[in-house]
């Protein structure tokens, strides 16, 4: 069987690489202690002989059932993949940007309001307002200072808790007049016509400040959301997909769910349990991928990985 992995994040590894890459994990068999990112790297190395393929930075939005029972999976960027079986190993959902509370936010999403910088050239010679105080707000302010016509960084505090080097670089750029730095202010409103034209802020004395802006980039981190998974006709209990523990199948034929995204009596959210679920699921999925073949159970120790 061949496996194609689609992930909304731009890198492999889910929570491990996104949230705690440098944290040690102590409950992986065979590793008294291993860093989360090292575990991901090792898993990738282990998967290599099976030639998996990847679509990263795109969220799966639609599953379309075909006449033969297989699916066409379509992503947020319109990539489509034909699959005989779908395995949802989505953890807590897809990591999506946290949105600030701001009047007219939805109106200008995609029309000047962006939650991530996919292509910096979009912002060339434009007036850009960045909001946030973390590392990504600091890093993109520094980067876009040389690309945009004008970058304004808006932060609600007087100081930054991000990397000290980046923070001092931002203060230097402001001092040199290369960017505008507005501290102790909050986003209040987005305004414009068909597109974003202005960003209205409120300072600590509740005074309004109006900025001309072609783009607003709020950078307030990521948070997992179940997202489109909720629309696929699966049985969902408290944000998790109910599965049959005989093979971790969902109520929809050819769709399986493994890892933290599934739920069943006695479920434990452990990486260890995810591995177990994956192995059982694979043996069940085989019948859809190769309906004419009989599955024979083999050990890598006997046959080597190339026998599979």
């Amino acid at each position, binding site marked *: 069987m061949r496996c194609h992995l689609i992930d909304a994040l731009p890198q492999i590894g889910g*929570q491990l690489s996104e949230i*705690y890459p440098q944290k040690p994990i102590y409950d992986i068999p065979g590793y008294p202690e291993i860093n989360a990112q090292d575990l991901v790297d090792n898993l990738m190395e282990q998967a290599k002989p099976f030639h998996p393929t990847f679509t990263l930075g795109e969220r799966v939005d639609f599953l379309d059932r075909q006449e033969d029972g297989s699916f066409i999976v379509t992503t947020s960027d319109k990539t489509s993949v034909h699959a005989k079986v779908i395995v949802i190993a989505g953890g807590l959902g897809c990591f999506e940007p946290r949105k600030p*509370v701001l009047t007219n936010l939805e109106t200008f999403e995609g029309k000047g309001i962006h939650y991530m910088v996919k292509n910096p050239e979009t912002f060339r010679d434009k007036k850009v307002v960045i909001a946030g*105080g*973390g590392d990504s707000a600091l890093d993109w302010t520094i980067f876009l200072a040389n690309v945009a016509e004008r970058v304004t960084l808006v932060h609600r505090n007087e100081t930054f808790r991000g990397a000290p080097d980046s923070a001092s670089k931002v203060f230097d750029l402001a001092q040199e007049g290369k960017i505008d730095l507005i501290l102790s202010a909050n986003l209040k409103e987005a305004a414009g016509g068909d597109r974003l034209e202005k960003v209205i802020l409120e300072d600590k004395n509740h005074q309004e400040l109006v900025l001309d802006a072609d783009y607003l980039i709020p950078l307030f981190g990521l*948070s*997992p959301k179940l997202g489109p998974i909720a629309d696929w006709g699966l049985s969902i209990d*408290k944000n998790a997909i109910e599965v049959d523990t005989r093979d971790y199948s969902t109520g929809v034929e050819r769709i399986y769910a493994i890892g933290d995204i599934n739920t069943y009596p006695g479920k434990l959210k452990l990486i260890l349990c995810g591995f177990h679920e994956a192995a059982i699921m694979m043996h069940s999925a085989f019948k859809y991928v190769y309906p004419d073949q009989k599955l024979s159970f083999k050990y890598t120790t006997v046959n080597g990985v190339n026998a599979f």
Partner: protein
Amino acid sequence: MELIKFTVEDQQGERQEVEAPTDMGLSLMEILKASEYPILATCGGMALCATCHVEILDGQEGLGDATDTELDQLENLPEYFPTSRLACQIRIGDQLEGAVIKLRGEDVV
């Protein structure tokens, strides 16, 4: 087993009294999850995701200020408050008796 009581205000503003044991080494996040409050606690209690963000409405004196690690996370949020904390970093203990805690993390739905 010694029990303490405190009040939790959910995202909809409804208040309920919650009882928790002080001798099991639990965090406030763990008690909130066990009480079926809709908090994500994505990172499982490592102060790395801020999804267990709470605001201490009453009883902050006993609980103290947010630590640097908590502030690093809170800073990333679109909004936080002077008495914001991460529930995963609050140990259940006598200092929580009578406190009023408002859930501020994103709703799980």
